[in-house]
């Protein structure tokens, strides 16, 4: 108990000092945009730190995978660019577009609507976006984590194929994954979806592990992790959209009746129909935003905490050193928190998907009897 109290007090101290650190900086770093003021302030004018650039560079997508800078040279993995422009298909490595170079009429836009994207100049001199299916940093990260996920799960299922479950206790990967799979399958999917859950279990389990592994890979700060996959709205949109389709395509007539002809007084019906139809879309929309916002905010916060070190380093040894200690402690705390969030968000997404599917398949009480 004493041990536990000691830990709690350290945690509280860290939180208080961290809050003070943020208050001291005044600008509210997580907002990103405001932090430009810090770097642009006269105190630190001699060498600017582009906080916004760093943070948005990390949480956004890019055509190459920037790993680190060694001296003046940057260590970058070039990725294939696949583009269909007005002159046909183009396929080349992103290293050809480095430092604003123009290759086959294509270049990376520096500003405007398509900032950071590959564009070409059309006849009237405007930047237009070609059809762009480049393998970007997020795509590569997605592929890597998918390979890891498939390997893990197949190793697990291979163990079950090769061994008699009635005679042996699981070992290795199977022992690692079995309790998680059992928990999601029995406690979440079976309970939330109800009868006929087996049809949806593979999808929901895939979603859970897909989100979990991408969340976890996002926390790893170096290649092949660190990409902000589940904190990218495209990914969460795709996942939420599949849940939306599953919810609405496997439903029964009672679900549609509840939406278009709810059992309410007649004068309420038009309002209720509007609300229900709206609700159809808000549920997956909330799924999409929740996962996106949680993971992106987590990445932002950790990056901010790290960037504090470099900003305060300009303010002198004492402040810089003290803030470095605070930043490191707070960074450790945030990383642990993110581990928890990684699991919770995957769990919540799966659970809510299962609940939505379960609700859309529910039958009225009187029909059950």
């Amino acid at each position: 108990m004493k041990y536990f109290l000691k830990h709690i007090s350290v945690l509280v101290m860290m939180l208080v000092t961290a809050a003070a650190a943020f208050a001291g900086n005044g600008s509210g770093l997580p907002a990103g945009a405001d932090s430009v003021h810090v770097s642009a302030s006269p105190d630190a004018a001699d060498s600017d730190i582009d906080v916004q650039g760093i943070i948005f560079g990390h949480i956004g997508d890019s055509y190459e995978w920037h790993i680190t800078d060694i001296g003046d040279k940057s260590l970058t993995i070039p990725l294939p660019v696949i583009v269909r422009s007005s002159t046909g298909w183009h396929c080349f490595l992103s290293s050809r577009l480095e430092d604003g170079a123009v290759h086959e009429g294509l270049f990376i836009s520096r500003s405007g609507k398509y900032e950071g994207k590959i564009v070409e100049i059309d006849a009237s001199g405007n930047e237009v976006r070609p059809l762009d299916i480049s393998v970007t940093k997020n795509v590569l990260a997605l592929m890597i984590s998918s390979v890891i996920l498939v390997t893990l799960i197949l190793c697990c299922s291979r163990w079950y194929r090769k061994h008699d479950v009635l005679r042996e206790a699981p070992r290795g990967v199977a022992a690692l994954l079995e309790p998680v799979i059992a928990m999601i399958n029995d406690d979440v999917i079976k309970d939330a979806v109800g009868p006929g859950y087996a049809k949806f279990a593979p999808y929901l389990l895939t979603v859970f592990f897909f989100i979990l592994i991408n969340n976890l890979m996002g926390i790893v700060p170096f290649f092949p992790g660190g990409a902000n996959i589940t904190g990218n709205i495209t990914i969460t949109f795709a996942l939420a959209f599949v849940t939306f389709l599953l919810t609405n395509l496997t439903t029964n007539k009672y679900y549609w009746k509840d939406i278009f002809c709810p059992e309410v007084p007649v004068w309420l019906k038009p309002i209720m129909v509007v609300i229900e139809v709206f609700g159809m879309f808000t549920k997956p929309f909330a799924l999409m935003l929740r996962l996106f916002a949680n993971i992106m905010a987590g990445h932002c916060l950790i990056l901010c905490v790290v960037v504090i070190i470099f900003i305060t380093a300009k303010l002198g040894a004492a402040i810089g050193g003290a803030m470095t200690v605070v930043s490191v402690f707070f960074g450790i705390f945030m990383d642990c928190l993110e581990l928890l969030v990684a699991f919770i968000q995957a769990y919540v997404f799966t659970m809510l998907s299962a609940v939505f599917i379960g609700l859309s398949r529910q039958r009225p009480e009187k029909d059950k009897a």
Partner: protein
Amino acid sequence: MSLLLPDSGLLFWMVIIFAIVFVILARYGFPVITKMLEKRRDYIDNSLRLAREADEKLSRMTQEQARMIAQAREEQNRILREAAQARDNIVSKAKEQAQDEARKILEEARVRIEAEKESALREIRSQVALLSVKVAEKVIRQNLSTDKAQMDLVNKMLDEVSSSKRGN
């Protein structure tokens, strides 16, 4: 703002990758695992049920055993008791028989003694008579003719003696 807008290229790849992952895992991954887990859970439930039943059976058997032992002991006691009773019976019967036998023998002996006595008396009587006759002869030889009254007296006395003997 670009953060909040889905990117078509990434979406394209995401759909492909997710579809592939889903197909692989839904076909070769999760169903195998969940089926095996289900199988094992059923097996464990079944085993637990069997163990419980076996336990019940065992306790029933223990009860039965105790009951049987008690019964056997009771039987043993009963047999012992019966044996003791039978022994007592036999002994008492034998005793009775022996007593009867003894009584019979005594009776026979008494009858025989009686008969012997009778015959002895008869013998004695005849002897006495003979003796008397001999005595009488001797008396007669000396004094028969002389005293007829004496002879009568002897006879009379002999009769009296024999009649008193028979009266006993």
